[in-house]
C-alpha cells in the first residue's frame, strides 16, 4: 500500500530535535537554567529509548529523599493516566471498529514476507525475517537522526517532523473517522468531515509544534500515539508483531544503555550542547510545584508526531536560582511517544486476538507494573533509561501465559460458576 509506505517513512522520522526552531512555550516554561539537563533524545525512527535525566543541585539529603518519594509516586501516576488512556482508546477502537482487525493481505513494505504459509516453521522464519528488516530500518533511521543532529541539520529534522505530523493528524485521523462512521452507520457529508478534520488537524499542528494549553497538547499526543498503534495493529502480521515487540525491547535496551548506542550518543550530544533534546515526540507531564520564587525551567515542548520507537523516560529536575535556602524542584517525567505506541500495540493485539478480556486486563496490569518498576529504577539511577524492556517483557509473558493457561481455567470456572 503506497500510502502506508510514505506514512511509515514519515512516522519513522519523528524526532524532534528542534530546540532552536520550535519556540518554548513561554507560558509554561522559562528557560532560565542552562544547567538544567533534561534532555531526552528522541529517536523517532529507531528504537525507543527512555532517557531519564536528573540534574542535581545541592539540597539537603533527607528532604531530597522525602521529596523524591512523594514526587516519585506522583510522577508514576502522571504517567499511568496517559498510558492508560491511550490503551483504553486503542482497546475500545479494536473492540468496536472491525476495520483494524481485518486482515486483507495488505502489509507494510517493512514486513514484506507473508505469513500465509503452510508450515509453522516457514511462518516463524518469515516473521523473524520481517522483524530483522523492521529493526534494521529502525536502526538506520536512528543513526541517520543522530548524524543529522550531530551536524546540526535542524531545519531538515524540523521539516521531517512537520511532514509526519501533517500525515498523522490529517490522513490517519480521516481514515479513523471514516471507519468509525462506517461501523456505526452514521450518515455524513464531505463538507462536515472536511471541517472536522481541518479543525482537528490544524489545532493539533499548532498545539504540538507551537504553543497550546498543556492538556490539549497531551491529549493530541495520546490520540496520535493511539492512531499509530492502530495502524501497526492492522498492518503488522500476527507473529511478526510479537517478534517485533520483543526485538524492539532488546534494541531499546542496547540503544540507550550501551556506550556507543545511538540514543545514548544523542543524549550526550544534547547535553554537551546544553540543548533540550528532541522536544517533539515526547510526552511530558509537567509537575509544576509552584513556589513564588522558583523558576520552572522545565523544558516542555511537546511536539510529537507518531513516534516510532523512541522512548525516553526522562526526568528533569531544575533548580531555581532563588536566593532562599529552599529549593523547590520542578520535576517532569517524560516518556517517549514510541513507548505509548508499543504499549498500546501489545494491549491492542491482546484485545484483538481471542476476544478474551482477561488477557487484555492481564497485559494492562503487567505493563503498568513494568512502567512502575522502570520509574523506580529511574529514581535510583537518575539517568536515561529505556522504558520498553521491562513492560514489554512482562506484557509478553502475561499475554502468552494468560492466553494459554489462565483462559481455559477461568472459562471452566465460569461455566460451572465456581469462584476462586
Amino acid at each position: 500500500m503506497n500510502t502506508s509506505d510514505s506514512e511509515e517513512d514519515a512516522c519513522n522520522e519523528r524526532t524532534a530535535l528542534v530546540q532552536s526552531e520550535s519556540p518554548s512555550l513561554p507560558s509554561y516554561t522559562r528557560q532560565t537554567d542552562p544547567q538544567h539537563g533534561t534532555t531526552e533524545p528522541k529517536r523517532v525512527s529507531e528504537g525507543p529509548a527512555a532517557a531519564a535525566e536528573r540534574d542535581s543541585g545541592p539540597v539537603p539529603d533527607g528532604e531530597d529523599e522525602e521529596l523524591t518519594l512523594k514526587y516519585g509516586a506522583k510522577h508514576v501516576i502522571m504517567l499511568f493516566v496517559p498510558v492508560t488512556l491511550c490503551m483504553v482508546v486503542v482497546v475500545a477502537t479494536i473492540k468496536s471498529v472491525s476495520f483494524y482487525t481485518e486482515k486483507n493481505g495488505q502489509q507494510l513494505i517493512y514486513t514484506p514476507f507473508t505469513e500465509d504459509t503452510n508450515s509453522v516453521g516457514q511462518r516463524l522464519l518469515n516473521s523473524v525475517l520481517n522483524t530483522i528488516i523492521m529493526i534494521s530500518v529502525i536502526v538506520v533511521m536512528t543513526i541517520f537522526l543522530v548524524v543529522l543532529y550531530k551536524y546540526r541539520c535542524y531545519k531538515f529534522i524540523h521539516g521531517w517532523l512537520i511532514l509526519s505530523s501533517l500525515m498523522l493528524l490529517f490522513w490517519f485521523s480521516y481514515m479513523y473517522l471514516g471507519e468509525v462512521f462506517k461501523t456505526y452507520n452514521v450518515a455524513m457529508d464531505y463538507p462536515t468531515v472536511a471541517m472536522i478534520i481541518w479543525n482537528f488537524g490544524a489545532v493539533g499542528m499548532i498545539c504540538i509544534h507551537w504553543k497550546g494549553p498543556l492538556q490539549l497538547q497531551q491529549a493530541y499526543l495520546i490520540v496520535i500515539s493511539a492512531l499509530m498503534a492502530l495502524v501497526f495493529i492492522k498492518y503488522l502480521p500476527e507473529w511478526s508483531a510479537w517478534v517485533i515487540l520483543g526485538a524492539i525491547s532488546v534494541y531499546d535496551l542496547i540503544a540507550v544503555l550501551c556506550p556507543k548506542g545511538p540514543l545514548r550518543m544523542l543524549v550526550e550530544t544534547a547535553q554537551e550542547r546544553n540543548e533540550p533534546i528532541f522536544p517533539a515526540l515526547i510526552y511530558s507531564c509537567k509537575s509544576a510545584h509552584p513556589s513564588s520564587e522558583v523558576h520552572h525551567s522545565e523544558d516542555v515542548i511537546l511536539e510529537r508526531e507518531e513516534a516510532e520507537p523512541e522512548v525516553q523516560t526522562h526526568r528533569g529536575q531544575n533548580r531555581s536560582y532563588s536566593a532562599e535556602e529552599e529549593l523547590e524542584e520542578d520535576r517532569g517525567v517524560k516518556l517517549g511517544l514510541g513507548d505509548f505506541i508499543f504499549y498500546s500495540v501489545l494491549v491492542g493485539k491482546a484485545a484483538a486476538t481471542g476476544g478474551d478480556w482477561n488477557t487484555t486486563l492481564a497485559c494492562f496490569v503487567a505493563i503498568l507494573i513494568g512502567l512502575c518498576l522502570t520509574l523506580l529504577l529511574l529514581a535510583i539511577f537518575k539517568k536515561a533509561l529505556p522504558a520498553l524492556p521491562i513492560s514489554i517483557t512482562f506484557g509478553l509473558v502475561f499475554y502468552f501465559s494468560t492466553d494459554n493457561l489462565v483462559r481455559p481455567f477461568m472459562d471452566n470456572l465460569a461455566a460451572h460458576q465456581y469462584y476462586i
Partner: protein
Amino acid sequence: MAAAVFFGCTFIAFGPAAALFLFTISRDPLRVIFLIAGAFFWLVSLLLASLVWFVTVQMSNKESSSQQKALLIFGVVLSVLLQELFRFAYYKLLKKANAGLLAISQEDTMPISVRQLAYVSGLGFGFMSGAFSVVNILSDSVGPGTVGIHGDSQHYFISSAFMTLAIILLHMFWGVVFFEACENQRWWSVGAVVFSHLLVSCLTFVNPQYEGSLIPTYLVLCVMAGWAFSCAGGSLRNLKLCLTCKDKDFLLANHRPR
C-alpha cells in the same frame, strides 16, 4: 434488555468497589500504586494455579468428566491457597519496602501506614479477582442471547454480579484482617482468613443452587466486615461519633466545623 443487564450487573459488581476507589484511593498516588501492585500479585498467584491445573489436566483422562470436575475442584482449592500465600508474600514485601523507605527518608513516620496498605492491597486483590471472574460474563451479556436456553439457571448474570460484589468486598476485609494478624503475630486469625476464603469458594460448588452459595457468602461477608472494622480500630463508640458528626478527629481532618 441487553444493555440494561450489562449496566445493571456491572454496577452491582463494581459499584461499591469503584466508589471506594474513587473516594479513598484515587487522590493519593502512593495508594494507587500499591493497589495496582496488589492486583499484580493476585494475577501472579492465578497464573501459578492455572499452570498447575493445566499440567494436571494434560496428564489426565480428558474424556472422563468426573475426573475433570475433580481436577477443577482441586484447582480451585489450590488457587485459594496460592492467593493467600501471595497475600502473605505481598505483606512481607511491603514491610521490607517500608523499612527501606523509612531508612532512606530519615523521617519518623512512614508515608503510608500498614493499615492503609492492608486496605489498599485487599482492594487490589479484590478488583483483580472480581474483574477476572466477571468481565467476560459482562461482555457476553451485551450481545444477543437467551439465558439458560439449555436448562441452566436463568439468574446466571445477576447471581454472578452479586457473587463478584461479595468477593471483592471480602478480599478487602480479608486483607485488613490478614495484615493486622500478621503484624500482631496472631496466626489463628490468619488461619481463619484462609479458612473463610476456602469456605466461600467451596460454597460456590453448589451453584446453580444460589441459596446455598450466595446467602452463606453474604453471612461470611457481614462477619468479616465486623471483624475488619474492629481490626482497623473501629468500635461502637467510634461509629456513633462518626454517624452523629461528633468525631472531632475526623472533622478536623476534613476541615469541617462542628
